[in-house]
């Protein structure tokens, strides 16, 4: 496909570029220090030390202890582990889990699986901005509730949830609290003690580490069984030889992300708000989805009336812009995103959504080009939309 200009990557919520410093930190563990950390000889000391060092960095980033960090293969594995193993370990106490309607499929589909195995799940509604109401969490608690799982920040609309308040409620009632922080880790300050988080899932590739590595934080004292049975790795709770290079990469990426967090947030927030303002001023019948205040610094999510998201993505791609959409056509089903429906958008508007998630590497000039291209693409698609035709014929009603 012809590209008129260099790629503008605005899909950082999907995945991020691996930073050169991260690649550099990883390389020796693929080439020179290839020993198995579980081996006894001195040759394995270095990979063992590197894994321990990465664990310390990551623990420090969320105010945890190193022995509370368990490396996994991805955020999805962490979510599966947290929910399934907690349901099993606490089956004696009860069989009820509270979560929300806007969780990632890693949580929702795991909950659906658990429901087939005797667990009862309450899926909480959210407000029109995608925020969970803490009082709803408290109201949903039953004597048999064993776990509350609410995402730290939503992957589609960027809304940051009132985790501190929900954590306090969970603590007050003596219920385990898990948060899927895949979108928030390294992007928002997190402290597991302050927020009363008992378990936390995160992933490396959302913070400039490679794909294929994540972790689950499990607070000391939480009874949780193994999910991957095998050797004695990860304190016998997650068998399988450590993915040393990837773990080192995630450690390095965490160190870099935490070192620049505030400064990066400020820069991304400015760029994001600039992009949102430009798009809203150029495109009529457009809205921003998600909370404008409690929002990830890099997330802009729009809905454009009368057009469909996939068409928009293909046209943006032809202009060298990578974005994503919650339209049915991009989800592989005929329904638009469950998140957009949960915040109350009608189907036809949910189909016209566009998510642009930027990084600190994007520029204001790029945002100008993106906003103007979005305007052109929306105009073009509206000119061939029967919904827009009807809208105009009815004098804009």
């Amino acid at each position: 496909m012809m590209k008129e200009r260099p790629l503008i990557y605005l899909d950082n919520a999907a995945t991020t570029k691996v930073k050169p410093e991260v690649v550099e930190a990883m390389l020796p563990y693929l080439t020179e220090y290839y020993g198995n950390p579980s081996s006894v000889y001195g040759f394995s000391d270095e990979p063992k030390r590197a894994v321990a060092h990465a664990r310390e960095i990551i623990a420090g980033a969320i105010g945890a202890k190193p022995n509370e960090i368990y490396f996994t293969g991805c955020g999805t594995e962490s979510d599966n582990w947290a929910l399934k193993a907690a349901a099993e370990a606490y089956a004696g106490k009860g069989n009820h889990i509270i979560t929300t309607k806007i969780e990632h499929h890693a949580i929702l589909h795991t909950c659906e699986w658990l429901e087939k195995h005797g667990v009862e799940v309450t899926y909480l509604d959210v407000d029109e901005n995608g925020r969970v109401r803490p009082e709803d969490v408290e109201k949903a608690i039953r004597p048999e509730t064993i776990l509350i799982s609410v995402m730290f920040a939503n992957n589609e609309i960027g809304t940051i949830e009132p985790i501190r308040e929900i954590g306090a409620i969970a603590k007050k009632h003596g219920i385990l609290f898990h948060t899927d922080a895949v979108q928030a880790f390294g992007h928002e300050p997190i402290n597991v003690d302050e927020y009363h988080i008992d378990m936390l899932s995160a992933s490396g590739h959302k913070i400039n580490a490679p794909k294929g590595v994540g972790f689950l934080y499990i607070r000391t004292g939480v009874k949780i069984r193994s999910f991957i049975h095998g050797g004695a790795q990860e304190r016998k709770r997650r068998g399988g030889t450590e993915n040393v290079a990837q773990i080192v990469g995630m450690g390095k990426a965490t160190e870099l992300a935490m070192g620049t967090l505030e400064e990066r947030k400020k820069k991304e927030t400015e760029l994001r708000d600039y992009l949102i303002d430009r798009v809203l001023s150029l495109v009529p019948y457009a809205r921003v989805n998600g909370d404008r205040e409690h929002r990830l610094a890099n997330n802009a999510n729009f809905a454009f009336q009368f057009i469909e998201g996939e068409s928009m993505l293909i046209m943006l791609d032809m202009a060298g812009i990578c974005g994503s959409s919650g339209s049915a056509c991009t989800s592989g089903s005929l329904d638009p995103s469950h998140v957009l429906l949960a915040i109350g958008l009608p189907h036809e508007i949910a189909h016209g959504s566009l998510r642009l998630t930027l990084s600190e590497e994007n520029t204001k000039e790029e945002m100008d080009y993106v906003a103007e291209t979005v305007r052109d693409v929306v105009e073009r698609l509206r000119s061939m939309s029967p919904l827009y035709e009807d809208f105009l014929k009815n004098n804009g009603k």
Partner: protein
Amino acid sequence: MYTEKVMDHFQHPRNVGELENPSGMGTVGNAKCGDIMRIYLDIDENQVIRDVKFKTFGCGAAVATSSMATEMVKGKTVQEAMAVTNKAVCEALDGLPPVKVHCSLLAEEAIHAALWDYAQKNGISIEGLEKPKSDIGEEEIEEEY
């Protein structure tokens, strides 16, 4: 994910627009599942489709199938247009990804709906043409998933 032909028809759709006082017009699909197609036909006294225009709300495949379908019926008699099936549209586009095949079904239905409108207005019957379903999209959900 799309063939070159699909991309060509998506990027340069043929026959986009409206017709004033069309001989027949049909709209199918629904916004709920994300595809709506509208076809306008201009048919002469010999039942030849002189002109055809379309408007579509939908994905790349929906736009491309609308475009291809209009191209295939233009200049044909209404009876010949009945042979433009979803299969024929799909083949003319060198195929569609499996999840998008319903889009080609929508194109066939939109043509049929416009022909039905023309037949009704002129009190004629077209062989093989049945009253179109108004809400094809809903049915697709149950069929495919």
